């Protein structure tokens, strides 16, 4: 499959472009007008309907190439995101809790752009702290 990846990317590009327009302009068919079984034709997250599955595969075919751009040219971003990814369960747990904290803060302070920026900056910083502490712990364990 690796040998054919360029051809797959070219084939996937129109699907990514058309579905992007569908999302931006909300071009989705009326669910009541769809034939049975409707889940084969709907856009539904809970059931991961075929259109989502296909569009996702097209999306990763196209955008997986971007890592080769980021890695040499934006090394700090590559290292930052990779450190989150290496510690994904810990970071996911902290992110889940922090996003609820963010919701509560936005509820209390009525969500201005300044509050939103602070929530984002502090939240992402804490995700980085979580990844860094997780890796420090792993290093300590490996030395014992």
């Amino acid at each position, binding site marked *: 499959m690796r040998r054919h990846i360029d051809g797959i990317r070219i084939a996937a590009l129109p699907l990514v472009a058309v579905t992007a327009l569908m999302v931006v302009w909300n071009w989705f068919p009326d669910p009541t007008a769809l034939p049975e079984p409707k889940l084969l034709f709907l856009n539904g997250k809970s059931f991961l309907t075929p259109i989502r599955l296909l569009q*996702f595969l097209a999306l990763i075919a196209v955008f997986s190439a971007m890592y080769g751009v980021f890695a040499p040219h934006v090394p700090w971003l590559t290292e930052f995101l990779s450190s989150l990814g290496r510690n994904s369960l810990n970071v996911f747990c902290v992110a*889940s809790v922090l996003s609820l904290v963010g919701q509560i803060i936005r509820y209390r302070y009525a969500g201005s752009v300044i509050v939103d920026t602070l929530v984002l900056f502090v939240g992402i910083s804490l995700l980085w702290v979580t990844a860094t502490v997780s890796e420090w712990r792993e290093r300590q364990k490996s030395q014992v």
Partner: protein
Amino acid sequence: MPRQANAVDFWRGFALVSIFVNHIPGIWFERLTHRNFSISDSAELFVFLAGWSLGLLVSSRSAATNSALLVFRLGGRAVTIYAAQILISSIALALLASAAYAFDNPLILEWHNAAAIFQEPALTHIGLVLLSHHLGYFDILPLYVVLMLTAPAIAMLDRFARPVLLPFSFALYFAALMVPFTARTWPVEGQWFFNPFTWQTMFVLGFVLSRNIG
């Protein structure tokens, strides 16, 4: 030493940041995440990369030589994820209760499907432990637990009957779409936000593609 930066960790980090932002509805930066231009969002990426990571683990030298060790490791991972789900759900409930008291607003206790836990705690706590009751935005780890519980079967099918794995996964996927069926929630009547019978296909695709490309 942590492993060097690589594409899988990079995209998983990307998914984690997107999930964090998307789980704060209304935040200004929500309009910048890729779901505004894409039908699929970070949940698909997260599950796909979980399957991809499983594929890399299964093809590692230690796992390749010892099936029993592999099954033990995958089972242990499922338990770890289960524990994480219980922990973050408990913290979330405490946060909601704290906010309700601090702002003198009992309606906060009803956010994110939490009402049943405060109004009918006996049954709903059983549901939390059985993973049949999920808080809103805290519903992807139960799927991940199920996927990791099935991971030993996926790994063994891959090892001993590889041509069967993907057709079986797609057969289950289309059956769940056409019948349709999903996992039910309890004690609040409803269904899992992430249908494990369909989302398993994303996990298996990540697994299979990692074995062919990774």
